[in-house]
């Protein structure tokens, strides 16, 4: 071991770091909202424009807020998963948030692909999305009885995410 070994040592550390880095996803940005109260809002419902929805109404329940849109391609990948799990009764109440959409497009989308939602709130201008830090639809928030966000899925929910992350957490929160 001499001073000429230093470059090698530094290089080995670098390779170790890069090896760890290979297993990370740089595009996935964790939400700073996890562990914080879900931001409040009050917007019209999609199917019933006269009625409104606010997260306050879900107090005392564990529930999912699923952000979707008719223009969103990967939502079509995700939607059957939610429909399937909701049909089997495995899911807590799921509230949809139709994000930056046209009302008729959103309604058409639901009648075409199925409506697993308790109701869908309608976020025409995307303001609710901004408060929730939405940046890539679909996104899904798991909110506990006290109204605190416990988990956020960025991108489509796959059966794997459902089984390994969401359902166990729902079970735990439901206790």
């Amino acid at each position, binding site marked *: 071991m001499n001073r*000429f*070994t230093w*470059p090698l040592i530094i290089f080995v550390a*670098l*390779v170790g770091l*890069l090896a760890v*880095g290979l297993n*990370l996803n740089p595009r996935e940005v964790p939400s700073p909202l996890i562990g914080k109260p879900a931001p409040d809002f009050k917007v019209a419902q999609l199917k019933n424009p006269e009625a409104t929805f606010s997260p306050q109404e879900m107090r005392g329940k564990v529930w999912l807020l699923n952000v979707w849109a008719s223009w969103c391609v990967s939502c079509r990948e995700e939607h059957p998963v939610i429909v399937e799990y909701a049909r089997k009764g495995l899911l807590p109440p799921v509230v949809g948030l139709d994000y930056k959409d046209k009302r008729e497009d959103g309604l058409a989308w639901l009648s075409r692909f199925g409506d697993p939602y308790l109701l869908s709130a309608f976020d025409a201008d995307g303001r609710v999305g901004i408060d929730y830090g939405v940046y890539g639809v679909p996104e899904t928030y798991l909110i506990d009885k006290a109204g605190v966000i416990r988990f956020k899925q960025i991108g489509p929910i796959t059966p794997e995410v459902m089984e390994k992350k969401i359902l166990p957490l729902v079970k735990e929160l439901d206790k």
Partner: protein
Amino acid sequence: MIPELGHFALLLSLFVALVMGILPLAGAQLCQHRWMALARPATTAAFLLIAFSFGCLTWAFYVSDFSVLYVASNSNTQLPTMYRLSAVWGGHEGSLLLWVLMLAGWSLAVAVFSRQLPEAMVARVLGVLGLVLAGLLAFVVFTSNPFDRILPPPAEGRSLNPLLQDPGLVYHPPMLYMGYVGFSVAFAFAIAALIAGQLDAAWARWSRPWTTAAWIFLTLGITLGSWWSYNELGWGGWWFWDPVENASFMPWLVGTALIHSLAVTEKRGSFKNWTVLLAIAAFSLSLLGTFLVRSGVLTSVHAFATDPRRGIFILILLAIVVGSSLMLFAARAPKVSLGGAFALVSRETFLLVNNVLLLVTCGAVLLGTLYPLIVDAFGLGKISVGPPYFNAVFVPIMLPVLALVAIGPVARWKHDDLKTILGRLWPAAIVAAAAGIALPWLAGGWNGAVGLGLALAGWIGAALVSQTADRLKKPGAPTASWWGMQLAHFGLAAFVVGVTLVSNYQEERDVRMEPGDTVMVGGYTFKFLGVREADGPNYRASVGSVELSRDGKTLGTLYPEKRDYGLGSMPMTEAAIDVGFTRDLYVSLGEPLTADRENGAWAVRVYFKPFVVWIWGGCLLMALGGLLAAADRRYRLRVKRTLPAPAGATA
């Protein structure tokens, strides 16, 4: 059929590269002349096979053979021929094949231009290149085969990313890769010298022109990339500190340090270990850049679609190539002699300080580039490190480098004293002070940043002039490489002027323009004449017309475009630029603000960019300086004089 031939040639070239990598190296160790003699023919064969393979892929693009998956994903029939052909390197697999082709090309060049080198040296250099080539070919063959078929073939290919449909794609990647890959030659020379235990002035002299050549290509490649983004992105930025830009900038910084350090090693026999380490580092950073771009560990505009297997493969390759080189270095370096003595005040010391500063800069860029990864790896969250960080860190370290550029060449080798040096530099100091104080006033208002920038540029420029005058008074014409150095340093001064002025005096205006509206920016009047719709080969364009005039005199018309390539891609902005020696006038078309596209109002962004071409002009001068240095006669006339030297060179 042709893609299969290409694939077969690729497999064959992997085999040939293994022969080229193993036998000559073993032959040099065991004094087997027949094995050593294989180096050149194997190199030629590897090059021809890879070139053939590359030709096959190009053919598949030319005839739009969509049964080849890579062609189907990166090209379509609508694409103009020029872009269809350069789409060969528009994606991961093809650009890697280009990488490999360049490596084989450099190896062939070494094989051809090394007639005067000792047999064992040639065998070792080509052997090392062969091993690297084999590693990369294995990467292509096992993880990134560009000839994979897709069945049934789609009727039409997916389009090439519109951002890449620019002449920049034709020139930028090949140039950049030539530079990246070119450092492999300096690397191979360094490893060969370490294996042989012959780190001497002759070795430095042999690797110098190769290093300079690679550096020229890298300089040009980076310059072209910068020019491309200036044209393409619609707001006239020329450097973004994007991870991939950094990946090409780091080898450039180390390569620049290497060129300077090689000068000392060749002339004075000093810094041998340091030079070897830099040669290893420059190529390692090229490989690291390849890893960063292709593994998906960092997000970047340039990043290719990622596949975890690729990341692992290339990381292992990186670990083997660089790890074994550094081990060899650690084993051999302690025995290397120190070379000529020099005093504390001497050109050697100044060059060493320059090297330290360049390396620190490179380290800072590396730290900033990898820091998000470090934070993430330790589970501490996600952060971004962007231009504000790099500018804050880069500029202060560069200032002393610029100050030294004037001092180094004035100082004498071996021994000098500060008084004499200052004596030679006082005219430059006066010019610098004048430039720093007076010019900003003339340019439009004094501020510290402009003052400092212009003072440093003046300092470098004036020192160059006075040094050149001194040199010409002495007998004998200076060598081409001396002129090359002067030119490159002059280019640096021009670059500094460009950066300083454009970042401080640029003017921009975002306006709503209806036909007939005018806007004044930087003393020029821009008159919007309207927009017409036009069809390009594979896009629809809205072409605006903007008439330029100054003091009532019409200067010409610019045609900024907004292009829609369809397929759900974002509209592309094609800025129109009136390039000038002292200013660029830059117009980019924004969104239409009314339903009537042809006669309605548009958002238009107009820039006045003083001296911005000096940025690329300066870089071109640097490259040109490199060319002069590499073309120096002494690299060609060395045959008889240096041949006896290597004997017993290790002390």
